[in-house]
């Protein structure tokens, strides 16, 4: 029997055709991370790690712990011409890709041109809509010409740069590079077994400095419970867990619980086209009548902050502390009365014989959004609004954008323009796709967003976003609910951990290990 089993095993092994990779650790220190999300590919052109911290690549610029831009492959921060239409970056000298090829301005041009190429299926091309052309007057200078003044432009120069020769005569969309990349970054990919793990090795020839942690292994475990169990069995040095599972490590010796702020919002989009929510008073009532703090305390186990606009309270530079909604069900009821939606004998509100009805949709596979949708639904029911909660898909939510509210998520902490402009500017109202999904239309909001987008003067921009928050909270097109905190459990073995406000994505790239090339063992 033993032999039969052995044969089966060997036979199957032969089928697997497994190549045995070279022996593991190149010596200590090494680290193992349990990640919840695996990247689809590692090609910056297609959309891998566009906001920096990519481990394998460097962008022209990067960000520090406070999210301030820092020069990376550029010698200094790229500068705009006075009219804001031309941006110039000068490259650092002596940078090499991990295969030894020197970095040239042509590589930068190739990277950005490929992103903009209509034949390349890039998921981040929209970020560069303002770009008219990218050129390299010499080997160390890159010039971006814009179609219109776009002051946040430098924020998007975090994109990793790829070596152009790796794509000679290859279709970018399915290039071998997508799984076995070459970059200038602090780590190189030594092995990626899709669905299982990725092993990164320190790039000791990095132009800045060689990382102290020589081997980093990302193990991909999609299931939260399985990840929690494997963390508990001592397999990982760090992992990401939902707040409730992470809480179980509170006060456990040798472990650290990390709670990082993010600009990752969940919000209820209110349809402007629905007669009931077309009235700004009703939208104000909904914002006043939902108990955000209760959602944070129960659903998020305390790991979150209330939201009123898409601008996170952690963005000190932009956030207006006055732009909030205080929970007050009585005031919300009065607003609804004023708007003519009065409570009938059955406890439900109606106006001219029309019921106050607002269906709430959420994507079925997302349990957090389900919990939030149910909480909103019960708060609205207390106000006498008939708010049925329905599970569906994004595609169908979009089809019903004129008659139903929905729980959306998104947001990033880098510049308010990316979180607010396409979401709330009336220019995008009625366009197909996921732009201004609620058909919101407020000319003062438009004006503030346009001024902030075009002006290069930080003081003007700051004031415009203050204006935007003031106007929006007076005429909310959404009921933004919460900004999530991301929670991690780590073994207390590392120095150099710094908190950085995180975007929506916190798989391999951002997250508590955003700067692990600067970590060292204790």
């Amino acid at each position, binding site marked *: 029997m033993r032999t039969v089993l052995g044969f089966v095993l060997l036979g199957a092994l032969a089928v697997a055709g497994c190549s045995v990779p070279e022996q593991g650790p190149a010596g200590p220190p090494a680290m193992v991370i349990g990640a919840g999300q695996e990247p689809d590919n590692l090609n910056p052109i297609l959309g891998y790690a566009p906001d920096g911290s990519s481990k394998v690549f460097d962008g022209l610029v990067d960000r520090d712990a406070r999210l301030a831009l820092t020069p990376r492959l550029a010698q200094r921060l790229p500068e705009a011409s006075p009219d804001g239409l031309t941006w110039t970056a000068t490259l650092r000298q002596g940078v090499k890709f991990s295969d030894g090829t020197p970095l040239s301005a042509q590589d930068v041009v190739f990277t950005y041109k490929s992103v903009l190429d*209509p034949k390349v299926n890039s*998921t981040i091309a929209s970020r560069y809509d303002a770009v008219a052309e990218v050129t390299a007057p010499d080997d160390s200078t890159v010039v971006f010409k814009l179609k219109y003044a776009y002051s946040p432009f430098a924020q998007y120069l975090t994109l990793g740069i790829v070596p152009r020769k790796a794509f000679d005569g290859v279709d970018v969309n399915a290039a071998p590079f997508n799984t076995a990349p070459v970059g200038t970054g602090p780590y190189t990919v030594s092995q990626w077994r*899709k669905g299982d793990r990725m092993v990164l090795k320190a790039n000791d020839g990095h132009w800045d400095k060689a990382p102290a942690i020589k081997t980093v*292994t990302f193990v991909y475990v999609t299931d939260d419970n399985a990840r929690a169990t*494997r963390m508990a069995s001592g*397999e990982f040095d760090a992992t990401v867990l939902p707040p409730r599972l992470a809480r179980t490590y509170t006060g456990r010796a040798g472990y650290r619980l990390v709670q990082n702020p993010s600009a990752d919002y969940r919000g209820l989009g209110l349809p402007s086209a629905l007669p009931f929510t077309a009235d700004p008073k009703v939208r104000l009532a909904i914002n006043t009548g939902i108990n955000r703090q209760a959602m944070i305390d129960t659903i998020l186990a305390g790991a979150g902050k209330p939201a009123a606009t898409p601008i996170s309270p952690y963005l000190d530079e932009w956030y207006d502390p006055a732009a909030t909604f205080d929970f007050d069900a009585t005031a919300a009821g009065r607003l609804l009365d004023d708007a003519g939606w009065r409570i009938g004998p059955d406890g439900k509100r109606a106006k001219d014989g029309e019921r106050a009805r607002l269906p709430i949709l959420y994507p079925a596979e997302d349990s957090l959004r389900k919990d939030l949708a149910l909480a909103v639904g019960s708060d609205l029911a207390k106000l006498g609004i008939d708010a049925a909660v329905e599970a569906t898909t994004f*595609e169908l939510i979009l089809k019903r954008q004129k008659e139903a509210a929905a729980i959306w998520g998104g947001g990033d902490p880098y510049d308010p323009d990316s979180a607010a402009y396409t979401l709330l500017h009336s220019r995008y109202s009625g366009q197909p*796709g996921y732009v201004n999904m609620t058909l919101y239309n407020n000319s003062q909001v438009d004006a503030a967003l346009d001024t902030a987008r075009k002006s290069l003067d930080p003081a003007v921009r700051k004031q415009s976003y203050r204006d935007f928050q003031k106007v929006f909270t007076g005429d909310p097109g959404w009921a933004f609910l919460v900004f999530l905190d991301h929670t991690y459990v780590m073994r207390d073995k590392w120095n150099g951990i710094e908190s950085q406000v995180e975007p929506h994505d916190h798989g391999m790239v951002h997250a508590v290990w955003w700067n692990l090339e600067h970590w060292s063992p204790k």
Partner: protein
Amino acid sequence: MVEPRALVAEVTRLVLRRLAFAVPVLLVVSFGLFLLAKASPFDPVERYFGVRIIGADPERVAQIRENWGVDRPVVEQYTAWLGHAVTGDFGDSLSLQQPVSQVIGDRLGWSTLLLAVSFTLALLLGLALGTLAAWRQGGWLDRAITSGAYVLEAAPVFWLGLGALFVFAQQLQWLPGGGLTDADQALDLDQLVRHLVLPAGVLAISQAPWFALFVRQNLLEALTQDYVIGARARGLPDRTVVLGHALRTSLLPFLTLLGARLPELISGALLVETVFSWPGIAKATVDAALNVDFALLGALTLLATAAVLLGNLVADVLYALADPRVGFDG
């Protein structure tokens, strides 16, 4: 008794007949898949963008839709895909940005290994326990085995997997909790075997109850047959009767049903691969379905259909060889 040569001819005819039948089946199944994918509420381009679809420029999204040709009529998409597929070119996976052949090549082996080991284990367990239960019919052992089997039949594989993970990886720390190797270890036989124990064990245990109950049922029927009763009356030892006479006849229908059991096993593998981060094809299949990844889905569907057809064929051939009285395809 059929002549050996005639038997070979019969088997060859059977195989050829089945192969001829397989071609239309594969065509119908793959076209059905394209129809289903077209009707799915998911949009491949939006799935490809993921969270970045929020705020993505509508023109850009439309451009990618055009690049992929997913806005074309389903018949056109299908014939284009088929035209390449018959030449062995399965195109590129939209969700993984890799050639489909590479996606499958990287992952299929690991799934095959997991399935083969689990299937063998489940078979042996089922045989042993089913035989024991039938032999001691009505006794405490029989009751324990049957009730245990019913409980396991009802337990979701996912739940079994998480339970095994908790007990063996976290509490006892006997076995690794997932993956192919430890994080810092190279792949070798020792690592592989240690990492295979939990996923293969869980999958085998989830499948074994069905086999055990089936064997028990058939064996009990066989034990009431005249020749078995006769053998017992002649004073042959119980073991010889059960293992020699009864089991041999009761195993025949078992063979036919093995092929039919394959889809169950494949869906079980899917959940086990998810819990134990086993880098097989199952998880890629789910992602392909959710992302409406036509190229990858098409290739995987052909594979799975072919596997089921082949499983049934092998079972029938074995059956025919084991019991020459059985007519072919009859």
